[in-house]
């Protein structure tokens, strides 16, 4: 999966538009993921996953921050997320299929809040970007 320069422009544009809402988007992404794909909750037995959970909000903020960081260093996502990649490989070991599920929910959040922003081309670029992030985070699994 290679991000073209058009892809990179599109992705940066999305995150510029999202701006300060990124944290809320992160939280909503997780909320949707837990509702839609209940198996993802198995990674959070220690969390209160009820509506409005402060833990989910806090974690959503972290997830969003990582996506923003990746977008800001889009020429070297692997470098930007190297430590996160280590964490996922050594400690968290979230099964790779789940990154697609998170990605889907993030796209849904962007689409529902900014339909005009998510043109088909931008949709394609963002989907590729999210795949690339998932690939980086699982790259050191074995």
């Amino acid at each position, binding site marked *: 999966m290679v991000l073209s320069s058009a892809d990179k422009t599109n992705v940066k544009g999305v995150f510029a538009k999202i701006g300060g809402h990124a944290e809320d988007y992160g939280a909503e992404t997780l909320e949707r993921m837990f509702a839609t794909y209940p198996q993802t909750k198995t990674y959070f037995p220690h969390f209160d996953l009820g509506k409005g959970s402060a833990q989910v909000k806090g974690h959503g903020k972290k997830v969003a921050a990582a996506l923003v960081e990746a977008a800001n260093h889009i020429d070297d996502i692997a470098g930007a997320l190297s430590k996160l990649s280590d964490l996922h490989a050594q400690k968290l070991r979230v099964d790779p299929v789940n990154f697609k599920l998170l990605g889907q929910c993030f796209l849904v959040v962007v689409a529902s809040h900014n339909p005009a922003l998510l043109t088909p*081309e931008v*949709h394609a670029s963002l989907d590729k970007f999210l795949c690339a992030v998932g690939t980086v985070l699982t790259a050191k699994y074995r």
Partner: protein
Amino acid sequence: MSCVLGSLLSDSQGSFLEGHTSLQTDPCPASPAPRTPPSHGPSGRPGRGCGQGIKGPAGSGLSYGVCALLQPSRAATMVHWSAEEKQLISSVWGKVNVEECGAEALARLLIVYPWTQRFFDNFGNLSSPTAIIGNPKVRAHGKKVLTSFGEAVKNLDNIKKCFAQLSKLHCDKLHVDPENFRLLGDILIIVLASHFGKDFTPACQAAWQKMVRVVAHALAHEYH
């Protein structure tokens, strides 16, 4: 209730069906077929369907039975829909412009996952997002596909049965990897989200993701 196979078989896919001029479709039974003794129908395959539905090419030994509920394992895997899920699905569907959403969903599929274009060599110009979005065959086929979804919405308790013939078509004639059904389902969710905004709540998304998953599963069910 009727299966949409008739309309789906008519136009641009017609080339697959040259020579099979006697195709007829049967409506989906409204309730599970009565248990009849396994029949050795024209196909010579015991126990497959009740002998109705589409007949394959003469001498092919293929028969596309409409009802395949004689095998207990299938009846045991009926999907359960809560009242809330049914309500969320129908209320969204009631507001969907099938032509627009269908066209958009298919166009996005071809744009976001360009390898899916492999099934549409005869669709003309798919060389750019603009070309794809404006392509009349894409629009028409998108409408057709989403209309078919509508049949699933109307027959939530019979989706597998309703799509049995379509499933065989996608396997035997169209040779579509079922992964594509999952991709299209995900795209449809995003299209719905962009149309309904905040009204497309997490509960709504969950119900619809289940719906598209069930449809994808039903379409893959007859693959062999």
